């Protein structure tokens, strides 16, 4: 098995095994979406209107919840030291670990989103565009989270600081993600412009975030 594949598979396996990652993220997402109608009352029209926003905000927060684990566990137990002496350049390592976060956390969150949409009275006709927009946007979510995770390496209780660093970077994803799904925007082209912008955001993050994360990791290993 190639070093890159070995690292990717190990990270996905650890995310499933250690439980905390996926279980907590999905559970958190579920809770956020369930308590929203309880707080707003049973106005179905209102719920349908704000459903895309709630689903996106819930997804971003749920993804952030497990973002600290991208590098932190490997840093604490010395694995990152050994990985740094391996055959892969550090930006590639950082990219693979963010990719593993997307595979293990991003995709399950996207798949559960339509089911949660039912709880918010989101029209079933918007489900395909919801899933498409989320699949296009969540790589950016995981890779940007990687920057925050690498910058907060070695800090105690780094979760809040990580959120402060990363949430501002999520603003464009949120804006275009919601506008891709909003059912009240008329016209046949309402999905594609925001969809392509989400793709662009993801591609840019996939290229740039590993470089930033690798620089931060280098600094943390000193």
């Amino acid at each position, binding site marked *: 098995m190639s*070093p890159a*594949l070995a*690292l990717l598979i190990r990270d996905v396996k650890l995310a499933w095994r250690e439980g905390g990652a996926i279980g907590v993220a999905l559970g958190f997402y579920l809770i956020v979406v369930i308590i929203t109608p309880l707080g707003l009352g049973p106005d179905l029209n209102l719920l349908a209107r704000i459903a895309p926003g709630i689903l996106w905000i819930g997804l971003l927060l749920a993804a952030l919840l497990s973002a600290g684990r991208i590098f932190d566990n490997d840093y604490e*137990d010395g694995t990152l030291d050994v990985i740094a002496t391996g055959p892969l350049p550090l930006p590639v390592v950082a990219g693979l670990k963010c990719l593993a976060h997307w595979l293990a956390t991003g995709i399950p969150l996207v798949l559960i989103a339509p089911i949660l949409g039912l709880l918010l009275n989101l029209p079933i006709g918007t489900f395909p565009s919801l899933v498409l927009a989320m699949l296009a946007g969540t790589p950016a979510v995981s890779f940007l989270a990687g920057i925050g995770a690498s910058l907060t390496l070695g800090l105690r209780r780094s979760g809040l600081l990580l959120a402060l660093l990363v949430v501002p970077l999520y603003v464009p994803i949120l804006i275009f993600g919601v506008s891709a799904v909003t059912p009240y925007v008329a016209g046949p082209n309402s999905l594609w412009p925001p969809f392509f912008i989400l793709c662009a955001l993801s591609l840019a993050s996939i290229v740039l975030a590993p470089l930033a994360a690798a620089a931060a990791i280098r600094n943390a290993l*000193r």
Partner: protein
Amino acid sequence: MQLPFSVSLRAHDIACQRGGRTLFQGLRFKLAPGEALLVTGPNGAGKTSLLRQIAGLLPLADGQLAATGADSTPLDDTPLAELCHYVAHADAAKSALSVRENLAFWADYLEGGESGLAQALNAFGLNPLADLPAGLLSAGQKRKLALSRLFASPRPIWLLDEPSVSLDAASVTRLDAVIRDHLKAGGIAIVSSHVPLKTKFAHELALGLERAA
């Protein structure tokens, strides 16, 4: 174990700074294939920092570190870090993975392949524990798991930071034998240790003396 090639390691006037304080400077040594270096010194003298510098994790404040091939050709294409196995205080063991999965990952990641995994499992007798989650291992067994990584792929330079901590007497003897075999095969070992090892060290480096004096 066969090494892909043997190297010499030369340190020329290297210095180390941590937090604005100079730990050591003007450090020189030259290790030929098959030679070992014992690094000694009081706590905080910079033993770990020196090993991390050789492993490429810590930048040199000054000086040069270079590995050359057996026929004194420079090894331009391979960075020094990729010639080194670094076994630190932290064991780099994943408690959610079994012993076999831990070593299989290192064998794959460090490009040792199937034979690397088999050798690593045998090196410190971890075969009977192979299917146990690493989280259940004792401190000494975790140490052996970390040391077994040395066999996951053949690399000429071993950097061992207090390798005998929490090992039992039989395992320390085994560690000695393993280091001797590595040297016999033309490898280099740089060991920091407070516990006397039976390995014959060609060179000894005492850090932190100039500050005490």
